[in-house]
């Protein structure tokens, strides 16, 4: 991927959508052999996840750069029943200017933006308008988010409506019952249909890992969704009791690596929910670097689904620039 040397990951010159840089994952036939061979030993995976933060550490300028990288990969998100046009406009303003201008200047990181803005369907027009000309894509959650239990034809229609409304990324939720009952063919068919409905919009498959419970379920569901053409696999809706964790991320990243080794297609990864501290974001980036490699440390292949993470990173960056610990009210609300 030599051409990536010139990519900065900011919206200035980096496309965030995978299909604009390299071939999009077309999916493949369901390979039940590989699905059933997916195994995940929880204790071993937890050990790896637990010790990683102690094994990898970034300091000083490196830490600041990694935090900037984390920002460039954030899907700045609002998914609340009380969302309004005004709320979405404020969020989009934050996506365009995620960090105070003087701090970005001090870091030499002018032009940094978040990876995308993520909203419900009805908020798409407001977000598009606010982000016009920035190159920041709008992602919409879909398919009866978060439970995914509305009629199938309505879930398909919802995707089509969102794409028609201008969403370039669609975050779908899978039917958890298909995983829990081991109906892999059903899951494959569902994901295939969602992918087809997305057309050119890129599709993130939300596994709702907290409800799948076992890591083996996570590993198998990851494989099936990629085989069915997911561009990204994503942990959570943010509404489950347990959201993104490092052990779940490890399982999903290893599934992505396996899929890449088998097919040559890179699928993106998005942990979502519960990532709120700057230090957490560094741990996730380190895990990506270790398990998937540097190529994945770009917004076209990695996103954080987060709402409060940015605030903590801003405070850390101010501390880096000034040497004094910061306060949240010194940074613009999103």
């Amino acid at each position: 991927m030599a051409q990536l040397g010139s990519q900065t990951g900011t919206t200035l010159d980096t496309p965030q959508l995978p299909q604009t840089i390299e071939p999009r994952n077309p999916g493949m036939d369901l390979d039940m052999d590989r699905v059933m061979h997916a195994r995940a030993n929880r204790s071993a995976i937890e050990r790896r996840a637990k010790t990683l933060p102690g094994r990898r550490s970034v300091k000083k300028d490196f830490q600041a750069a990694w935090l900037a990288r984390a920002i460039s990969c954030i899907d700045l998100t609002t998914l609340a029943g009380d969302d309004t046009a005004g709320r979405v406009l404020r969020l989009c303003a934050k996506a365009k200017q995620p960090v105070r201008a003087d701090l970005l200047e001090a870091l030499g990181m002018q032009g940094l933006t978040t990876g995308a803005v993520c909203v419900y369907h009805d908020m798409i027009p407001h977000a598009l308008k606010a982000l016009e000309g920035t190159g920041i894509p709008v992602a919409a959650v879909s398919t009866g988010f978060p439970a995914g239990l509305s009629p199938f034809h309505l879930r398909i229609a919802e995707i089509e409506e969102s794409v028609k409304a201008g969403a370039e990324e669609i975050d779908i939720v899978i039917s958890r019952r298909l995983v829990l009952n081991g109906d892999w063919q059903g899951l494959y068919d569902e994901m295939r249909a969602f992918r087809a409905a997305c057309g050119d919009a890129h599709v993130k498959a939300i596994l709702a890992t907290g409800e799948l419970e076992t890591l083996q379920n996570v590993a198998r569901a990851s494989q099936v969704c990629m085989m069915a053409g997911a561009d990204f696999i994503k942990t959570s809706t943010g509404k489950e009791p347990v959201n993104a964790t490092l052990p779940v991320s490890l399982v999903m990243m290893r599934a992505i690596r396996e899929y890449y080794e088998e097919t040559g297609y890179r699928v993106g990864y998005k942990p979502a929910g519960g990532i709120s501290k700057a230090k957490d974001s560094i741990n996730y980036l380190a895990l990506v670097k270790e398990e998937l490699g540097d190529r994945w440390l770009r917004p076209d292949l990695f996103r954080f689904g987060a709402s409060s993470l940015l605030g903590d990173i801003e405070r850390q960056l101010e501390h880096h620039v000034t040497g004094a610990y910061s306060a949240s009210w010194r940074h613009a609300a999103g």
Partner: protein
Amino acid sequence: MTVKDIFESMDYGPAPESAGDALAWIVDQGSKFGHFIDGSFTAPGEGFESRNPATGEVLATLTQASQSDVDTAVEAARKAQPAWAKLGGAGRARYLYALARLLQKHSRLFAVLESLDNGKPIREARDIDIPQAQRHFYYHAGMAQLMESELPDAQALGVCGQIIPWNFPLLMLSWKIAPALAMGNTVVLKPAEWTSLTALCFADICRQAGLPKGVVNIVTGDGDVGEMIVKAEVDKVAFTGSTAVGRRIREATAGTGKALTLELGGKSPYIVFEDADIDSAVEGLVDAIWFNQGQVCCAGSRLLVQEGISERFHAKLRARMDKLRIGDPLDKCIDVGAIVDPVQRDRIAALVDAHGGEGEVYQPACDLPDGCYYPPTLVSNLSQASALMQDEIFGPVLVSSTFRTPSEAIMLANNTRYGLAASVWSENINVALDIAPKLVAGIVWINGTNMMDAAAGFGGVRESGFGREGGWEGLAAYTKPKNTGKALKPVAAFEGDTAEPQPVDRTAKLYIGGKQARPDGGYARDVYDKSGKLIGQAPISSRKDVRNAVEAARAASGWTGATAHNRAQVLYFLAENLATRKDEFAAQINRMTGGKSGAAEVDASVDRLFTYAAWADKFDGQVRQVPMRGVALAMREACGVIGVFCPDDLPLLGLVSAMAPAIAMGNRVVLVASEPFPLAATDFYQVLETSDVPGGVVNILTGSHEELAPSLATHMDVEAVWSFSGADISAAVEKGGAGNLKRTWVNNGFARDWMGAAGAGREFLEAATEVKTVWVPYGA
């Protein structure tokens, strides 16, 4: 590099831990260290330099202990020991707790010092070595507290000489000192000459804790000092290090009556089945063989992968190796640090270079920093016969081979002189739990590696040494029974020259493999009664009979796999059949010994058989409280083949007292009968024959203990030898056992009250078993 550059490259960058405080501590001590004897540091003397292997810089100058230094240290320990023991468990617990606390308070100082001195990554020192060292003192503070109530029959051994290696300097110190002190012993400890600094820092902590003078003494120096400690007036020697040195220590202490534990080398298998979580198994290897640069006695250094997944597994493994970061041990972002000393690095390189074109060598294309480093290395596609597959390398070098079936995996895993640890990776609980007991190793990790804790026993079998550290079984290494016997009075055979014809001539034979066998040499000796009348002839066994008996015992492996209930049934049947022939046995014993207690001896023997029939299914293992979601099983396993020199004085009870616990626990035995009174044993085989004892489980030899001792003790296919003989063979047994580091239990010339409580019980059951710790982490 600007922030923007790093934003693009996403490099880790340097993350150095400061060495300032640790270096300042060294300077505060004058950068020169003496020994710590009787509560204070001696003036620094002639010695050697301690270097940082990562940079080659001299950290401090240490003193080479002289004979008089060692003598003074041992005297100080000797003087301090009675009061330390008398202080009581609760009193000692307070000191151990204080030591644990102080280690915790100064944890970063110890961690940085360890990394500087040894070259290990600061992460490992900080997250593993030092916390585990603290844990050992906390755990054993508890053991001291509980000693009087839980171990009422145990007492301290006295002064313990302890010699520790350079791979985990402070941790090995804590493994040695904590249990010794808890049980009321005092110690003279020698750290390895390359890595003495944390031991000296620990001495400082002992002062801060107000530890009574002389309880802990630390002398520095090379192997010569170690030899002085082994030869000194100590009651116990504990050694962790190489098998070669361990063997020399065994020879040197043979017959001295000094207790001994040895934690030696290994070539531990790491077995991956096709149904394993392969990515996790690959990651596990990072902790198995690249932890501490592979300088770990229990390192998973011998990879065995099921053939069908081998190619994929190795590809993933090589990719993982490419990601390892090698460099400055004080960098917090480093996986592999420096090798402890150039001598070791050169040794590793020489072993790898000598692979002679066998296998494929893979080393990731990483820049090795200046200093003492060796790259992570994989040598794959080796066959079992390759030297690299057999010899311990003690460096970051993994060797690998393949297997086809579970039974082949077990066969290959056990095809080694060592028996320290093993890892088994499979998501199938049936496979994993079937394999674990079949592996010849002291520790088995299922879906994991290098898990250790103070609550779980650590130690090996075969040439990996004997004795356990940690857990309840670890305390046996630092205690002895309160009642030690009086000096043994030799019992001589009666002489005579008459030849009293028997009504029908009866031929006593040996009993080998379930059959009566004539001695290979074709000689017998006459056995006379007190009045000099001939009772009969007993065969004189030779080394070839020893060979045949051991072969038969080895072959009777079905006994070890039999259920405990089944073994109990056989023991009860033996008791039944012996009781039926009570009068005949009593008369024979009385005639042979010239005494009147034959009937009592037969009664006691029947009772003993009942006792061990009872124990057969009740000497349970335990589940240990280790800090992990899962179970650590302390399983009691049979040693294997045990050779026993039976007591001379009680020809039937002595034999039964040794045989019954051994076979109850699943061992097979070669019994050498009472030398002066052998005919009770040769009568006893008729009882064996009628009691469903499978052939080869019990084999009986008669003859000279002194002549047979070397053959049995040096036999490589014997796991343990016990001697309760009246002959002076303790030294010969211990010395002979050095060859394959077999477990020995000898009387050192002390008598045992076979008719009384000392003639039976847990002491025998513990000697008849090895504790294997099986770690089973779980999680849905």
